[in-house]
């Protein structure tokens, strides 16, 4: 037997097969357990995070696993001050207080302070939750100083606190959302489940000349064409379009009362954060508009036009007439026209008895909110806004579109997985677990559920709009 083969046998066990470390890890019957301090072979008595051989190899490399095989355990702490130094530095960088973290995690503040004190040992499960909240890679905690935290995101979130006066809970929510988006993107890539059509949107448009609404309409038309959506067809589930067709992570987070949504750039890809406040049936149209607006940023705005964390205030999106920023104005026009194409709106206007009736038709047919439909109609058909009265009620349309959005999107884990992690992300995690990429313990921890509850989540199935 060659030296290489005998080394692989030693690390992954003689039952493993293959000529590479990755192949050996995938066929290894060994599993591991980690703590703040070290990694060892899993045992019934050990209470730390259980890792498959695949995740242990990817996180720490074969030299560490060789040491586990030789000595029963291998130290993970890079320096005596880790992970305390990383956690404290990151929290301070984000200008978050330890009490805010404690509130978010529902633990006593003293536990946060202990985790930030070198030499004290904190259960890894709490460290992981802290890392996620601070948008750090929990796998790198202790092992890599800094834990692979994205500096651009941290700086932007810090500025939001310092310059825009955003509150701590919002910053913490966006920070955690960026962790979910980052892991979502990573899993999609690893599982070969990236959206098939996102690659078509490589030509970003830096065209924000006057009459920026028309630029938005034009880009919406191009988007429909690239995605193969016929001009007069409604988009029944925008979330499914974003998540499945385009492979864009979409998550819901508690963003407070002033924020509609955001996009966050992690690892070179952007994901969308929707305010959980838009989940109600009465807000379904606004949720669709927000999602379409965020898609405009994500698909068409050049990177230098966007912050790593691009937050959209509710006010600016609720009333298009108040949007003076060219990037936001174009995105608003794009959103309306992506959902309700200009040609179809003109046709509805031509055949409707009144502008109010036309608005109702647009709402019902395309799933756009009444105020947005009114503004869209005025803009496209050159009707005076004052001449368009809003329909008395659009409740029935809301119920229909809510059903359509829910049926089209993933419902994995709804009701028992926190909203931020339910849906498509839950499916991806479950798929990775069934493939042996991650342990049931890891998968459950990412979804904040018990390993038993994983059984209730179906793995991801290919879906199309």
């Amino acid at each position: 037997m060659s030296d290489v083969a005998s080394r692989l046998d030693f690390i992954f066990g003689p039952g493993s097969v293959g000529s590479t470390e990755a192949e050996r890890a995938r066929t290894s019957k060994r599993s591991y357990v980690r703590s703040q301090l070290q990694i060892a072979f899993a045992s019934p008595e050990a209470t730390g995070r259980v890792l498959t051989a695949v995740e242990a190899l990817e996180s720490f490399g074969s030299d560490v696993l060789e040491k586990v095989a030789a000595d029963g355990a291998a130290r993970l702490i890079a320096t005596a001050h880790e992970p305390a130094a990383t956690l404290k530095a990151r929290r301070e960088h984000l200008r978050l207080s330890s009490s805010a973290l404690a509130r978010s995690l529902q633990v006593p503040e003293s536990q946060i302070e202990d985790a930030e004190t070198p030499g004290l040992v904190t259960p890894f499960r709490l460290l992981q939750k802290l890392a996620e909240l601070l948008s750090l890679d929990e796998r790198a905690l202790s092992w890599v100083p800094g834990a692979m935290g994205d500096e651009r995101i941290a700086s932007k979130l810090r500025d939001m606190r310092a310059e825009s006066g955003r509150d701590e809970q919002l910053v913490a929510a966006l920070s955690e959302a960026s962790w979910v988006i980052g892991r979502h993107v990573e899993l999609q890539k690893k599982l070969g489940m990236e959206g098939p059509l996102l690659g078509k949107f490589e030509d970003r448009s830096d065209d924000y000349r006057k009459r920026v609404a028309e630029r938005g309409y034009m880009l919406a038309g191009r988007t429909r064409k690239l995605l193969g959506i016929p001009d007069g067809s409604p988009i029944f589930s925008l979330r499914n379009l974003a998540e499945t067709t385009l492979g864009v992570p979409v998550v819901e987070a508690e963003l407070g009362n002033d924020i509609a949504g955001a996009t966050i750039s992690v690892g070179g890809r952007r994901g969308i954060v929707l305010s959980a406040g838009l989940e109600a049936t009465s807000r379904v149209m606004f949720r669709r508009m927000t999602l379409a607006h965020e898609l405009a940023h994500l698909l068409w705005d050049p990177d230098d036009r966007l912050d790593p964390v691009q937050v959209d205030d509710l006010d600016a999106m609720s009333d298009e007439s108040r949007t003076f920023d060219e990037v936001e104005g174009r995105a608003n026009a794009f959103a309306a026209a992506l959902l309700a194409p200009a040609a179809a709106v003109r046709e509805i206007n031509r055949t409707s008895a009144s502008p109010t009736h036309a608005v109702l038709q647009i709402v019902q047919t395309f799933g756009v909110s009444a105020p947005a439909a009114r503004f869209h109609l005025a803009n496209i058909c050159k009707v005076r806004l004052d001449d368009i009265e809003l329909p008395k009620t659009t409740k029935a349309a809301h119920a229909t579109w809510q059903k359509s959005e829910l049926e089209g999107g993933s419902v994995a884990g709804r009701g028992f997985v926190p909203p931020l992690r339910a849906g498509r992300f839950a499916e991806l995690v479950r798929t990775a677990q069934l493939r042996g990429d991650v342990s049931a313990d890891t998968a459950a921890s990412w979804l904040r559920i018990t390993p038993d509850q994983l059984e209730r989540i179906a793995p991801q199935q290919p879906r199309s709009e």
Partner: protein
Amino acid sequence: MAPRTSSQIEKVGNPLTQAAFAQLRQRFPAQPPVTECIKNGQELDQMPAEELSVWCDGDQRSDFARTPAMLSDEDDRSYPVQLWVLRPDALVYAPEASTFGAALESGVIKHTNLTGGRDAHSGGELRLLGENTVVVNGASGRYGPRTEEALHEVVRAFKASGYRVFWTGYDAETNRPAPLVGVRLKLVA
């Protein structure tokens, strides 16, 4: 107190050490090393007696060594890591990085080099902070204590041999003794 080499084992009496570890030997019968950990035949080579030190009685009352709150890698030079094994005949220890170890395939010694691959009662790592002050753990994949209680008994035996003993505790999450670095030192009462 200068360490004695293993050739002196039978010649010098150490009443505290003998009593403390006799009890431990009784409690934990000698076991062969965990064979899955042995990577190559050199790991079973017996380290020459002149490179091995034998544990002997300390006098903790006379030790005023400064004790750091915790050990870091920077302390390696001042307090090098040593491996210890409780053999049936003596408690022996030696620096992990040694002339003998440097010539081995692994570049450092393993616990089985302290026993020649024979049975032992327990094993771990230690760092001497002073003549009579020591930090001890049970980190040995081959012989180490397998439970928190077993580790407790080990550190108590070291204390009973006349030393001021610090330890870093048991890492329940991995079901292994904690490493010596990066964990606040606790005095064994």
